[in-house]
């Protein structure tokens, strides 16, 4: 609430968007889906994303984060962070985000870097980190987000 109050003071305007989880100058939404293989009219197998209604251990789910600059100013240093929930394992190579640099954390979000540069402690020894060690994914936009512009970030995780 403190953040929102400060924003109010600065701009004097409160954006109220019905149905959204928060109000502010950027709107961020996440959605969880599952990939389904369907055979189209031409007999080809197509992948499509459907609601994550039937997920059992071993299945992959796909998280899509969309963010929109709903202010009338240009946003800078836009960074999206998504923790990997308990019971999920990040699927290596799955993070995706147009115009973003993608980094990972294996220490609960304290430090971020390329997966290849990260290490974890195994029985007192530093070992190269693996996809299952990832606790957070971070997307850093490489350019400004203009007023009204949208961005997207996505990753896949497997249910343990």
């Amino acid at each position: 609430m403190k953040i929102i109050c400060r924003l109010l003071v600065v701009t004097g305007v409160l954006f109220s968007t019905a149905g959204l989880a928060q109000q502010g100058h950027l709107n961020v939404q996440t959605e969880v889906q599952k990939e389904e293989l369907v055979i189209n009219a031409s007999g080809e197998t197509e992948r499509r994303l459907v609601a994550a209604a039937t997920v059992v251990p071993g299945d992959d789910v796909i998280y899509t984060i969309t963010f929109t600059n709903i202010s009338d100013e240009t946003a800078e240093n836009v960074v999206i962070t998504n923790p990997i929930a308990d019971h999920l394992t990040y699927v290596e190579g799955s993070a995706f985000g147009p115009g973003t640099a993608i980094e990972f954390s294996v220490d609960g979000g304290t430090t971020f870097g390329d997966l290849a540069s990260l290490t974890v402690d195994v029985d007192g020894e530093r070992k190269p980190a693996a996809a299952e060690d990832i606790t957070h994914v971070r997307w850093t936009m490489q350019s400004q987000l203009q007023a009204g512009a949208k961005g997207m970030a996505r990753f896949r995780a497997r249910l343990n």
Partner: protein
Amino acid sequence: MTLAILPSVRTAAALRARLSPPNLLALVALIGCPWMSVPAWSAGTTAGTVIDNVASVSFDLGTVNATLDSNTASFVVLERLDVAVTLQSNQIPVSPGEAAAALLFTVTNTGNGSETVELDIDSVLGGDDFDPAPSVPAIYFDSDGSGTFSTGDVAYQQGVNDPLLLADENIDILLLNDIPDTAGDGQLGRSELTARTASGTGPTGTTLAGAGDGGIDAVFGSSGGTDVAVGEYIVADIDISLQKTVTVSDPYGGTEPTVGATLTYRVTVVVLSGGTATASEFVDPVPENTTFVANSIRLNGSAMSDAADADDGEYNANASPAVVVRLGDLTAGDGPQNIEFQVVID
């Protein structure tokens, strides 16, 4: 006073030994010892778990730096219906006409929720020489965990005591079959155990609405909700001859079985048929009203200590004292095995 004693030769599966005629012991060779191993399954995240995801965005707008959370995107972990049946027995050696020969299986709920499991036996299978006849009843819980059929093991009745297994939980099941009299030496008979979830069976990925724990939907996993494992019986009828003589030597230089007389037992064990009596063991209870003579056990002329140690003989001085001589894997080619020991009449 009775001096009647009943020696026996047994394999590790001693329960199957039967005497016919008195000095001829029909034996079955046991190929290895059935033992249990519970595989480590991983059923995965428990059915009904809610997985929440919240992303955050941080940004600069003018002089303001802010971080905002997204909505929470959630999904519920459905129940995966999976079951696995694993045979724990090696090939079970049997003799023709043998009743209630047991095969040991483990049934595991490899799903991620609680599931009731139904069991079925089928002994009319291809790929064998004879059809074992399921005993009545034929399916038992290995209630005492012995790995073999024993008194106290509870019979399974479909629809009455179907086991309810938690995720990852397993249960040992015995299948009992009678071996037909007509089964010949070296013939193979097969019998299988099927387990299926009480919710049903179906193609992998199919959803069963409301069939999961707490009324959530259930999905058939890779097993399709059912699994089967096949066990085998092999007819291995081995005849072993067991001949026993006793020599009495009384304290007065005579041969009267009086108090203080020494009885020397000599037993000859020989395999008459083909095949191998695996892990054979000669067991002879010391008669009542007699006392075992320490260090009197001989095997083929060699002295055996009374202790349970590296040599093949021992004296079990428990409530039912007995002389035990391990004969190992015996075949006709090994020739007669001569065992000797002494007792004194009390």
